[in-house]
């Protein structure tokens, strides 16, 4: 596996999204990466090209049924070697990216009460 020649901010953005998808055992396509990173298409694809050349990621075509016309999407995933390399890079350059993110939504009142002094009793 080769290293990356240039580490840019868009590279770190894309890696951050890919690591998150890897942790959630998901695959992510180009358009979703563009949306998540808020970066332009050519910028994201330049990064994806470099990551693919370095064998940090691998792409897989979407499987379309016969009644689903149109171009196929390509899903990306960090490789077994790319994931630890990406994690190491992010921990050096952007440590906050590896912190667990608070999930959006409502916490049951009972759990909040339990956090109060005296356990809410």
């Amino acid at each position: 596996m080769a290293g990356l020649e240039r580490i840019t901010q868009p590279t770190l953005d894309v890696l951050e999204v890919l690591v998150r998808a890897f942790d959630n055992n998901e695959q992510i396509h180009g358009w979703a990466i563009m949306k998540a990173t808020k970066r332009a298409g050519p910028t994201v694809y330049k990064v994806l090209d470099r990551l693919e050349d370095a064998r940090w990621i691998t792409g897989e075509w979407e499987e379309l049924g016969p009644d689903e016309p149109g171009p196929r999407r390509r899903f990306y995933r960090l490789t077994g070697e790319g994931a630890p390399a990406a994690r190491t890079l992010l921990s050096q350059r952007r440590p906050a990216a590896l912190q667990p993110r608070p999930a959006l939504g409502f916490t049951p009142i009972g759990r909040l009460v339990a956090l109060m002094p005296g356990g809410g009793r």
Partner: protein
Amino acid sequence: MSGIEIILGILLGLVVNEACDISPWLAGKLVKKAAHLKYRDPERAATRAEELAAVVAERPGKLFKLATAMAFAAGALVTRLAVLVQDLGNSLRLYARSAQMLWWARPGRRSPPIVISKGTLEIRIEEANVEQVVEIIRQLHEERPGGVPTT
């Protein structure tokens, strides 16, 4: 409002409507061309062409699709131009080096003298006289078996 203005208004409306309708088709074509323009590797170009067409297809709105395709085309054009400039630079450097070598190797060119210096003493030997100087040194060796004086 004159008759011509009315006809122009109708025609313009038709053109705008038609342009909006063909923009997704145009975007698909443009993005495929962009992929083939950007990548020299035909396999990767074909992969990206389909993939980028899928990205464009996911954009909402007809004009957004065209705008995305134009952004990809502009990016591809810039990449291709950068590669062309780099290739041109490499070719020019190669030509310049070849021309320099031909200049040095031209017939009748006078080489710079060979300079031997020791302390304040400096001897300049022209390339044409090198063999003569070597012969003199050889003769001195024969005449003085103890060695040639170094000063």
